[in-house]
């Protein structure tokens, strides 16, 4: 069917782009001091890009592993909302739900909710999830192996790569004025509290503040 083929083509396109982005994850994670096995474990088991970058970014910047883990989990909270939108489309139970949950990420959600027909939604979800999972992990492995071959990643400027990665993840979320204002306010608060708390903790401070803002504003 033509619709199936179009979905498959889009899914592969997204997976290839993500594979390239996973190369930078593998490189940044290795430069941050994670082993090859730790880096690949994150891509296999965590399998949600922004959280993975956050964990290795905080570790690479000298933050505690628990500040990094908390930031990764907080960034993963949006996937719970994606799950809410997907559950009525996917209608999965039992073991299939356990497998489907692993693929609940930005790209699969965007692909699934863009279809009018539930059958095509499900096809888009699984095709995107499987293709992305394979290329995401291959990209991670390639980036990690390449960086292992370099004796000093700082020579390649890899220590300056994480902020650019976070910026590239942030940019698509800033297409309106309010998110942009909130992002700037968060950056200012994080810098202001930074000298007074351990590394990584400014992130938890802004997460707490925005939660209070979201819950109590009218």
């Amino acid at each position: 069917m033509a619709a199936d083929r179009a979905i498959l083509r889009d899914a592969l396109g997204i997976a290839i782009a993500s594979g390239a982005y996973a190369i930078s994850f593998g490189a940044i994670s290795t430069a941050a001091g994670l082993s090859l096995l730790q880096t690949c474990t994150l891509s296999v088991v965590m399998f949600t890009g922004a959280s993975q970058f956050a964990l290795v970014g905080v570790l690479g910047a000298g933050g505690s592993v628990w500040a990094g883990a908390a930031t990764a989990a907080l960034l993963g909270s949006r996937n719970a909302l994606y799950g809410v939108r997907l559950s009525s489309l996917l209608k999965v139970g039992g073991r299939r739900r356990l497998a489907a949950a692993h693929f609940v990420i930005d790209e699969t959600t965007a692909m699934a909710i863009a279809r009018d027909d539930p059958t095509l939604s499900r096809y888009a979800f699984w095709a995107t999830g499987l293709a992305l999972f394979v290329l995401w992990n291959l990209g991670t492995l390639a980036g990690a192996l390449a960086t292992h071959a370099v004796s000093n990643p700082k020579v390649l400027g890899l220590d300056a790569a994480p902020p650019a990665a976070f910026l590239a993840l942030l940019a698509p979320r800033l297409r309106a004025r309010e998110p942009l204002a909130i992002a700037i306010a968060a950056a200012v608060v994080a810098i202001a509290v930074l000298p007074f708390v351990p590394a990584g903790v400014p992130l938890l401070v802004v997460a707490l503040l925005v939660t209070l803002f979201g819950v109590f504003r009218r």
Partner: protein
Amino acid sequence: MIWAGVLVASVACYGLKLAGLSLPQRWLQDPRIQRTVPLIPIVLLASLVATQTFSTGQHLVLDVRAGALAVAVVAVVLRAPFLVVVAAAAATAALLRLL
């Protein structure tokens, strides 16, 4: 210790995905949750950009990473692909260090 963080955070991220598919829909459709959760990635990513560019440990510093971020901003505004944004920033930092 790194392993513990890797595993705990991975399980937590999976748990959040599974919770979204499994919990009663009306819990997570609470308007406070619906408007707060999408803001969390915005503030965390913005804070990560700021703190990882302008600090080392608990000290504020201005070094080649600021130049790298400026190049990344230009690349993002031009809608460059992810890998190009990251590679441009890394290359800028490497070149500035050679000067």
